[in-house]
């Protein structure tokens, strides 16, 4: 009974949302309500996640486990941010700088590390595979693409070199189109499988 109920709910909601694309005017209010419910549910799951995180760090702190110092930092930062968020409006410059002046450098540093890691991984690929057509192609395409973005090549509008540069710049778009077509077909099949209850991500089985 439980399985049947979840299947029926999933099927009805899915078909209603799908029909909303075709009959926007009559189904608009219903769909707006369904979307609002979804947003509320996601907000609640966020609260549950925050509560679980807090509980984990508090337990870690109480039992003096390894890494309890970092739990102190996390809890302190959380409660300071929470208090600032309740006391200060989001238009307040102090509150904005308090959050963003920490978050932006941290995330930018992680991105920089990611770039270095990608370079190292590409070199590791060449090291393990040696000089193969794939590794040579990868290296040449990376170097050519990076060099074209430097802006050193200044050419006329209708020269052969300009046409070649434009062709090389459009090469990634070919791959992008292939990826997007694959994603669209995959999404279509997954959507149909869910609507036909072949796949049931909302329940067992």
């Amino acid at each position: 009974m439980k399985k049947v109920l979840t299947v029926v709910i999933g099927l009805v909601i899915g078909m209603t949302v799908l029909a909303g694309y075709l009959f926007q005017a009559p189904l608009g209010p219903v769909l707006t309500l369904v979307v609002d419910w979804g947003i509320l549910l996601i907000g609640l799951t966020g609260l549950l996640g925050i509560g679980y995180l807090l509980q984990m760090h508090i337990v870690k702190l109480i039992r003096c486990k390894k890494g309890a110092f970092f739990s102190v930092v996390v809890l302190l930062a959380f409660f300071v941010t929470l208090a600032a968020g309740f006391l200060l409006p989001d238009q307040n410059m102090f509150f904005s700088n308090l959050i963003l002046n920490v978050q932006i450098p941290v995330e930018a540093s992680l991105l920089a590390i990611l770039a270095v890691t990608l370079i190292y991984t590409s070199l590791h690929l060449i090291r393990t595979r040696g000089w193969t057509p794939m590794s040579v192609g990868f290296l040449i395409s990376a170097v050519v693409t990076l060099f074209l973005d430097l802006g050193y090549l200044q050419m006329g509008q209708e020269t052969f070199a300009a046409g070649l540069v434009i062709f090389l710049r459009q090469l990634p778009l070919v791959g992008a189109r292939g990826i997007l077509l694959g994603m669209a077909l995959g999404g279509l099949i997954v959507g149909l499988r869910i609507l036909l209850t072949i796949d049931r991500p909302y329940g067992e089985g």
Partner: protein
Amino acid sequence: MSTLVCSDCGFENALAAERCQKCGALLEDVAAEEISPPLQSAHDDFDPMTPADDDLPGLLNALKQNGDIGTGEGYLSGEQPLDSSASEDIFDSDAPDENEDIPEWLQRIRSRASEEADSIGEITQKISAARQSLTDEQGSGQHEIFQSWLNSIRDQKGIKEDETPSGDVDLLADPANGTDTTDTTDSTEVSDGGSDWLSKIRKGRGKLPHDEIQEPSSLDREGDSLLQWLVALEDGDGQLTQYSEEFTDKKTPLVEKTRQTVINHQAPGDETKQQTSTEALKSADIKKPVLSVSRSEKTQADQLSATIVDERTSRPIREPSSGSSNRLLRLIFGVLLIAGLSLSLFINNDALLPQEHLQLHHRALLSWAEELPPRASLLLVFDYQAGFNHELTLVAKPILEKAIQADGEISIFASTASGVLLSRRQLGGLEQAESLLINDLGYFPVPAYGAYRVANHTLPDWQIPDLPEPVKSLPPGGFDGILILSDTYEGARTWVEQLSALTPGTPLNLLLTAQAGPLMMPYFDSGQVNGVVSGLVDAAGVEAEIEESSAVANRWRAYQTGTLMLIATLVIGALIATDWVGNAEGTGPE
């Protein structure tokens, strides 16, 4: 099976081996040779050990450790003669003399076998199943085939047909202690006293008691000596072979004696039957047991053997590279990178921006921004993480300054947690920031929900007046344009697909990071998106076209320096890396 035979020592190596496992010589020039596997002997064909019985040694070891059974030598040497019905009665709790002379371990096993069906063990279950099927069958046809097969084995062993009267009589001989079964009375006593199960099987097959002497089944022989066979198997192949040879050697004289006994006890009619059946057996085709291996089993076996070969293959030992030189190299590279980027950032003269980077999608976005009507209503979607703030600021600032008018109405919508704060910072840097009228629509955790909600302007049904709304109300007249600022193509794609389907009349424009730009270009080609600007390179082209800002020009030289260093790192690193590979191939276990 293909192997690599070493030209120096003749050792057979696996195909994947680069060096000989025995002498370490290089096998690069050695061609693979096809070597057929050794022929199986008759004993191998009759090997009753199935792959599933691999756990038997473990079982025997466990029994030994508990002191429940002795070692195999005792059984083999005859010091502790094994009861012929012992292995049968181990799990047979219905035996008449159950409580007499039964050791404790046997009682434990019996009680467990009566409680758990699986505890009997696979081989015992198989024996029981085989015994049951033997009882059910009309055994004559199959039995004759089996006898003919036994005869063929004897032929291969050099036993002449005239010396072996029938294949089943000699099985009465006791190979372990050489019990003389020439006396019919003795053999009958052995049969009656020792194996009640044997009588049951024979009765099930319709054999009279006197037939037991003439046609005991060879399966019975296996059942009698099951434990002996297990012990011998556990003690090693050598002892097992010795045991088998001993069995073969002792068989021939016993067979001759037994043959005489059987002839003496046979009735005239029985003799005729025996001769007839022997002739029929001679003319019958010899059928060997067929070993059926499925394809999946063969594949698994191949994988296992390949894994074993791969594990045993000698690998080149890489000599640890000199750590100090590597460290020095990294230090030099790091210093150069940081110094170059810092210097190029601190040099404050504006670089010459490339002009030809401005393309069709850039021009379309600029045209849309210039042609917006006065007091236009715009929606800005902030769908990027804080780490991309600097890049997107450089991309978006010239466009926003052109598109946002001093008295225009701006709605902002965030689909990342820090999106609202980032929008404040982004709009606060504009020239017309103080006079902007900003309508904050809040944060939507899922971009698809946000896009769906933006596209549907209708209010939801069943509203409860006193409760706060989960979503702020949207402008009733819709938007004159939507600008999506995104750092990933997943988020941008969701917004574009939903909004272009639900509000096809509203122009969509994308301000993206360099990583998201290429994947969103097909949406511009299809007409779903009005214009796209992505990354620092596109921003440089736009700034060069507008000529009103120098934010990109200040950083362009640092961008060029960093990219050049990246190219150099890739090229030099690739050359060094492949050189390492070449060096590593030359080093091996000498």
